[in-house]
């Protein structure tokens, strides 16, 4: 088609075009995972992820990277979903995210991912707020403002289930998390689902009631450090350094001595609050302070059940992609060789290997 349109004078252009194409073809091919020395992990602001900021600034991450002879760059991104998308596209080797987003973004996108560190679960950090009532049942028929398809949406679905309602009983209004506090201040918004610190901010307004929160579904909204499975397999040192650094940071920050307070104050400042504010956010975050704690949670039989719930919700909302025929479309691996869903499409693995090494002090 091109040749018939291009006249003699423009043959040069055609050549140029072909050259450009060839260049793109060569440069565009994705690189397979291989042993390397430099790694990039992304994190975003959230109570349970602030330790990464401290780890980077205090040099703990660098110390552990040096120990294994690698470099780890810890990058803060402003937009949570964007950070996961960047990870999924291959821009980062690891990224912090919740269990649900790990399933619906990288895993559903065909990027085999491993939950290297199970950091904490939300224990009240996510909640449903009603303005005119103090019972969840009253939500029936209302418009609910929340970030659609996020863990807030999942929390709402679980809450509605517990109240004998279904999602069709409410109208979900997708509202950006950045604007949800000002949205909540308007009169026509009467029901909100969000997470901290926005949750606490909205609850400061008189007349607002928290009618359901994540402490009623403990262990279902889990915050993870997720890394690319192939990268991890080719570079176990990357996993060791990250896990080693993580538990050293936690060891520092959980103490109530000066060093611990200084660490938490730094994290508080980086997340826009003060020590008291950050401590209160940690109260509603069930941190796994020791690797043994995290290993026990990862090995428990509840985790596959939780993930089955999450997969069901995700499938019902079309989050597993068009190719998904059922909630079991994406296989999930758990410690001890337990697999749920499609074994041939195993894309999300909960791996306690590295956390166990930390627990056994073998790092």
């Amino acid at each position: 088609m091109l040749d018939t349109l291009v006249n003699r004078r423009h043959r040069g252009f055609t050549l140029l075009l072909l050259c450009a194409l060839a260049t793109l073809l060569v440069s565009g091919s994705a690189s397979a995972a291989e042993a390397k020395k430099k790694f990039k992990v992304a994190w975003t602001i959230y109570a349970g992820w602030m330790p990464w900021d401290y780890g980077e600034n205090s040099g703990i991450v660098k110390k552990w990277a040096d120990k294994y002879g690698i470099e780890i760059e810890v990058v803060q991104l402003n937009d949570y979903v964007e950070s996961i998308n960047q990870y999924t596209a291959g821009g980062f080797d690891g990224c912090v995210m919740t269990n649900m987003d790990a399933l619906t973004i990288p895993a559903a996108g065909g990027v085999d991912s491993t939950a290297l560190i199970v950091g904490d679960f939300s224990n009240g950090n996510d909640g449903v707020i009603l303005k005119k009532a103090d019972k969840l049942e009253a939500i029936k028929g209302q418009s609910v403002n929340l970030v659609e398809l996020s863990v807030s949406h999942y929390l709402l679905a679980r809450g509605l289930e517990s109240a004998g309602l279904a999602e069709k009983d409410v109208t979900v209004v997708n509202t950006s998390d950045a604007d949800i506090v000002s949205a909540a201040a308007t009169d026509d918004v009467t029901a909100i689902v969000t997470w901290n610190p926005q949750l606490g901010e909205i609850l400061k307004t008189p007349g607002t009631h928290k009618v359901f929160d994540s402490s009623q579904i403990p262990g279902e909204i889990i915050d993870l450090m997720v890394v690319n499975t192939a990268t991890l397999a080719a570079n176990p040192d990357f996993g060791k350094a990250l896990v080693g650094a993580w538990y050293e940071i936690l060891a520092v920050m959980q103490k109530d001595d000066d060093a611990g307070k200084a660490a938490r104050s730094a994290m508080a400042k980086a997340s826009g609050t003060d020590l008291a504010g950050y401590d209160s956010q940690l109260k509603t975050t069930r941190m796994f302070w020791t690797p043994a704690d995290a290993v026990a949670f990862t090995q428990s039989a509840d985790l596959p059940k939780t993930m089955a719930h999450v997969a069901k919700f995700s499938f019902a909302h079309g989050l597993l992609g068009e190719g998904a025929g059922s909630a079991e479309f994406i296989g999930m691996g758990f410690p001890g060789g337990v697999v749920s869903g499609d074994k041939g499409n195993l894309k999300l693995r909960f791996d306690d290997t590295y956390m166990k090494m930390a627990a056994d002090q073998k790092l």
Partner: protein
Amino acid sequence: MKRLINLQPSRLSAMMLALLPFVLVFFAYVATSNARLEANPNDKLLPAMTSFGEAMERMALTPSKRSGELLFWRDSASSLRRLATGVGVSAVLGLVIGVTLGALPLLAAGLSPFVASLSLIPPMAILPILFIVFGLGELSKVVLIVFGIAPVIARDIQGRVREIPRQLIVKAQTLGANTWVVILRVVLPLALPRLIDAVRLTLGSAWLFLIAAEAIAATDGLGYRIFLVRRYLAMDVILPYVLWITLLAYAMDRGLRLLGRRLFPWQAVSA
């Protein structure tokens, strides 16, 4: 004289040259997409052309499981309604304010600096205020567009009115026209073609504000959908939506240009 500046493309080669960048981008996309899909058949970042077809069939032709609606058309209708309301109100406001401020120096002295300051406020920066005053419904979305583009249109029209040769205004007065008639018969016919231009130039901003408003709080709309499915990196939906928005914007621009030529043949509307 054979110099580069004198070389004119023939009709056919002009068309070819116009097509070239599009073709180039298309092939670059297909090549990169193929490479990525080869490495990971489930890659969502750069889906294959067939995925776009499937996604659009699902969005535009298959009733949604939840509401039974054709989501693509519902999104388009909602967005176009908001855009049309916002731009329409802005055009009327801009014309009225621009013409009065341009024609009446007494009013301009009082209001011109205010309108100028207003046009410089980034609307996105005062979103929380807009929410609290106008709520989160349809109104706030339209207000965001109006707030974003009406002052710009007003200032443009005002500038145009100021450019009207003084002689024309004096001439009209010697023929017995009062203020009202001068505005109606001299100022307005010269300002209206500029209004078309101003609207065309601010359409891009209008889309920007529309998408931003829909991203913040909505239940439907083109911007809403893009920001929603971005949550699971559904580029197979996002890219056709972006293409559709581009097409709509292009069609509006051409349409306005044609309208300007039809309505105001006395003033050649710029290309």
